[in-house]
Structures are given as C-alpha cells and as structure tokens.
C-alpha cells in the first residue's frame, strides 16, 4: 500500500478523490442541480447496489472458471451448463426437502462430483491439447443444455428461500429529505445484500485456502510449474481433480444463489458463460483477484448501462472488454505468461 503511494503518487491521489466523491454521492443528500443532471438519488444508489450484488454473483461463477484455467490451462466452456445444472438440482432438492440450505449444499456437491468425473473421464485423456479440451467442453455444453431442456422443460423456476432472507432492509442512507423534515431512507432487499456477503466470504475463503493451506500451496505451485510439482512427489492428477471439483462446485453453488436472486430458465447457462468469459478476459485469466475486479467492473457496468441507457447496455460491457484488450491484453490482474 505504502509502496504503491510512493511509486504512483498521482494515481493514488486520483483514486482517493474518486473514493471520496463516491462516498459523498452515496451518503450526502443530493442538491437540486445534481438531481436535474443525473436523475434521482434513489436510482443511483439502487443501481450501485444492484451492480455490486450482480458483481458478487459473477464473481462466484467466474472464480471457479478462472481457478480451473489457472491450474489446468483448460477453458471450460461447459461452465455455464454447470451453473444451470446446479440451479436445477438445488431447486429439486429444496422443493423435496423444504430446506433451501440443503439444496445449496447438494447443488455444490453434485456439480463438484460431475466436475471431477469430467476431469478424470475426459480431460485426462487429452492433457496438453487445449483446443481439443475446449471443443469437448463445447460439445458437452450442447448436450447438457439439450438434456436439461428435456428434463426440466422451458418453464421458469423460482426458489423459495427462508423467510428471514425475504423482505427489505433499511439502509443508513438518506435518499431525500421531505419538506416536513423527515429523512427518507433507502430500502434494499435483504437477499441481495446476502448474495454480496456470500461472494465476499467465498472470495476470502478462496484466498485463505490458496495462500494459507498446504493444498493451496500445491495448487499455486502447480500454476507456476506443473512438472516440478509432480517431480517433488505431489499427486498432480489428484490436485487437478480437486481443483476441478471446487471450481465446478462453485458454479453449482452460484446456480442456487443466483437462481434465487433472479430465476432459473434455459438460456441462463449462456448468459453466465458470457459473464464468466468477459469477467476473466477483463480481470485476467487465472487470477482470483482478477476475477473479483473483473466481476465488479462488469456487474456495475451492466447495471448502470441498464439503468441509464437501456438498449446499449451490452455495448458498454463489450467496450470495456475491447479497451482492456487493447491496453492490457493479459487482463487487468493477469501476469505475463
């Protein structure tokens, strides 16, 4: 931190100023001219929160994607299908047992198992041949999408999460002061704030797992030099299977979390695959921090695009990707390979 300030004093000042302006925008009561210029404050804060929670959801999906790539150099284009599969499985279990949390757990485990199966049965057969692996994942995603359509049809499903996750919380943020002098506080759904919290928790857990545990150390070593790791006596295929399991499991987990926040329907797999792709392209392939940064940027861009210029929202996301690729082809947090 200190080093950064010493080395890039100018940028440090710019970032601090930006944070100050943002905090002011959130907590201050907006003056007339700003409301005329940028619309109501409520829209802004809600969009900001929507963007943050969507970013959290994207992080959950993309972290598994980037984890798998980081270790195995394998772009798993069936990741979106795993998201959708997790959502459906979670829904079925939650409906049958009546417990949303059981659904969440089963979705994680079931999709993790499918990921391990995929790794051991398919990818191990063609190690080192990245293009073929990618093509196989495309084939699997086609088949999976079609079979899921056959089983669960085209209906939209809606989770019913526990009672206490429903409803809205009043945030300590004033939206407007009424003429009577009462302050109107901004309300926001509890569930969405929970999504954000879960994403942060998962991010911290992943960081601790990768940086503070023995297995995490092996994974990081595998990212840097797979052959050396094998030579030092680690069972690399086992590590691969484990990482694939965790990555896929996270997608299934995100399926339930995201399916509850929005809904489950065919086509969601493509949406979240696109999100993961853009998030990791922007953030840097193979980096968990990059996935967090990318998810935040894309989530915010998507929601602000949707709120302030609806039909061109996709273009904004796309432009961000193009600019990042032009300036920093390896992604914001990506190291040079």
């Amino acid at each position, binding site marked *: 931190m200190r080093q950064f300030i010493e080395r890039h004093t100018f940028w440090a000042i710019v970032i601090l100023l930006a944070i100050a302006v943002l905090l002011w925008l959130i907590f201050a009561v907006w003056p007339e001219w700003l409301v005329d210029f940028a619309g109501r404050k409520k829209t802004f804060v809600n969009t900001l929160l929507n963007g943050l929670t969507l970013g959290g959801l994207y992080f959950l999906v993309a972290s598994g994607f980037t984890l798998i790539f980081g270790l195995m*150099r394998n*772009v798993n*284009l069936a990741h979106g299908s795993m998201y959708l599969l997790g959502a459906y499985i979670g829904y079925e279990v939650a409906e049958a047992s009546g417990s949303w949390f059981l659904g969440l757990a089963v979705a994680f485990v079931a999709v993790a198992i499918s990921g391990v199966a995929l790794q051991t049965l*398919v990818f191990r*057969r063609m190690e*080192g*041949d*990245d*293009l*073929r692996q*990618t*093509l*196989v994942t*495309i*084939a*699997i995603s*086609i*088949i999976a*999408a*079609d*079979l899921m*359509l*056959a089983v669960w049809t085209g209906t939209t499903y809606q989770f019913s999460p526990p009672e206490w996750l429903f409803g809205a919380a009043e945030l300590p943020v004033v939206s407007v002061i009424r003429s009577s002098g009462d302050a109107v506080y901004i309300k926001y759904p509890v569930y969405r704030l929970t999504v954000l919290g879960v994403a942060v928790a998962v991010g911290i857990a992943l960081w601790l797992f990768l940086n503070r545990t023995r297995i995490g150390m092996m994974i990081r070593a595998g990212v840097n030099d797979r052959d050396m790791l094998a030579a030092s006596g680690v069972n690399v295929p086992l590590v691969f299977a484990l990482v694939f399991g965790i990555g896929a499991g996270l997608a299934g987990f995100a399926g339930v979390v995201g399916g509850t926040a929005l809904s489950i329907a065919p086509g969601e797999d*493509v949406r979240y*695959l*696109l999100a993961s*792709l*853009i998030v*990791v*392209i922007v953030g840097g*392939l193979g980096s968990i921090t990059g996935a967090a940064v990318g998810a935040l940027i894309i989530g915010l861009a998507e929601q602000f695009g949707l709120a302030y210029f*609806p*039909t*061109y*929202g*996709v*273009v904004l*996301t*796309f432009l961000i*990707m*193009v600019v990042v*690729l*032009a300036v920093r*082809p*390896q992604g914001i947090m990506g190291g040079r390979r």
Partner: protein
Amino acid sequence: MAGRNWFSGDSPLSGIHPAQWLVALFFLAYPAFASDFFTYQIGAYSLILGTISLSLMMLAGYGGMVSLAQMTVAGLAGYLVAILGDNSVGVMGLGWPWWLTVVTAILSAALFSAFIGAISVRTEGIYTIMITLAIAVAFFYFVRQNYALFNGFTGFAGVEPPTLFGVYWRDPVPFYYLVLAVAAFFLWAVFYIARSTFGLGLQAIRDNPRRMHALGYHVPFHRIVAYFLSGIIAGTAGVLMVWFNGRISPGSVGVDVVIDILVIAVVGGMRHPVGPFLGAIGFVLLENFAIDLIDRERFNTVIGLAFLLVVLFSPDGLLGIWNRLKARFRAGRRARPDRERANDPEPASTGSFTNQ
C-alpha cells in the same frame, strides 16, 4: 510439415483427380435429378453453411485462430442487406439498389471481421475462442435489445434477392447454381490463398509466430488480413443466407448457430478446404432426417454427441477418418508400413496452441 503436402506436392488444379471431376459433375447435374426440396433445402443450404464454415476453416486451419464469430460476421452482412435494401417489416429498409446493398454488406462484414481480428490477435490461442465467443454472444444480445436499428426480437422478414436477367433468383434451381458458383469460387480462392506468399506466411505464423516475427514479418497484420479475407467469405455467405431464408432475426446469430458452424468445420475436418462442405452436408442431412431416427426435439443432443465423438476419436474430422482408411488400405496392399506413416496426417491436427 504434413499439412503442407496438400498444397506443394500435387497442385490440385493442374492434375485433377478423376474422382474430383466426378464430384464436380455430380454437383452440376444435381438439380436435374433432385426434387426442389433437395435442391433448395438440402443442396443450397449445405453449400451456404459450408461456405461460412470455410471462412472458419481458413482462419483455423491456416492461421491457427479458431474464431467463433464467423456466423456473427455473416449475420451482420445479412442484417445489412435487410436494413439497407428492402424488407417487409417497415423498420429501416432504406431501399438502396441491390448491388450497392450487397457490396456494402460484404465490405462492412469484412471490416467487422478485421475489427474482431484486431481485438483478438494480440492474444494467443485459447484466448481467441473466448474473445470471439464473447463478441458473438454480445452481438446476439445487442441485436435482440436494439429496436431502432435491428428491430429487436422480431428482426426482419421479406428480404428478397433481386430479379435479374429475367430470372427470379429465389427459385430453387437458379438459387442453387448461384450458391454453387459462390461456393466453388471461394473454394478455389482459399486454395489459391493457401499457396500464395501470403498464405504460406500465414501457415508459417501458425506454426511458429515467434520465428516469423524474428524473420521480419508483421505477425498481427498478417492475421488481421486473414480475418478480413475470411470476413469477405463469411459476409458473402451471409447475404446468400438472408436471401435463402428471406428473414433474419437474433435467432440467426444465436449461440447455438454460432457453435453449429464450429461443429460443421470440426466434424468435416479443418485441414482441407473441402472439409467444411463435407461437414455441412452431413449436418444438414442429419438436421432434416434425424426426425426419422429420434424425436425432433433432441436434435441438439445428436449433433452434440456426433461432435463429441469426432473430437474424441478423430480430431481431424471426417476427412481424417477418410485419410486414415486410405492410408491403411494402401499400406495393406503394398505392405510398406513406412509409407503409412508418411501419409498419416499429424495426430494432433487441430493442434495445441502452445508454441514453446
């Protein structure tokens, strides 16, 4: 090395094999014995899909760049024909003369393709798939949301080819010959490009970009030009596609269609320009007649399984199977195992991207 003997040893134009004459004759005489349905829905449609896949084959086979945005490029050309020319929806339809519309559509598609190339060529290998897939999906969502220009979810209908020389070009037989001529021209063009200095440079860049860079070649520019040329092919096929269907909507550039093009190219074989056409014919036949084998609804499962099997067991597609059978047959007859090895194309023909 094995990839080059297609082009350097026996020139495909000077010493045409009798079998090739037969195939050409078959395609020319096809409408004479095929019904209208077979001429139009099977023949013309496979040739159009084959041409779009050919543009992917050119990029992937010679340039090592697997772009998933080829259908998007074709789709843009199709949309431009509907926007600049006439359509029956009442949105846009500027009513330009057909030749101007077609030329503008194809050139815009080629420039769009070059733009996609410019975005993706700075990164290597696997990134290309991801970036082009992201572009394709983003384009799909964009045309679906944008009503002012692309008429959103409904898209355009009533797009007609011009009536020229007293021929209505959407009648099955004239349309078939139009598509055949375009496909044959681009097949020849890809052969020609592959043997030109540019094409050889492109193939050398595919095999070792670093060395080519050291030799003084401008690697990104070479690749962008390849994208531009493939954009011309895909754009022309896109114009034919919109004439064929008479309509275009976001579904025409959806993810499943984008991936179908990849499936066609991979199943056919990406080492030879004929591969995509082979794949397209198989694909269209399966699409039309899988209904007799299984439920029509599960077509995607069938095509996915076919794709999976090909990727797992014959990475160079149907052409690879054919070549291997031929090699085995020859080796058996002459009992010269060393010859078999010489004829066998590299096993990892779709290629690994790591160049180190």
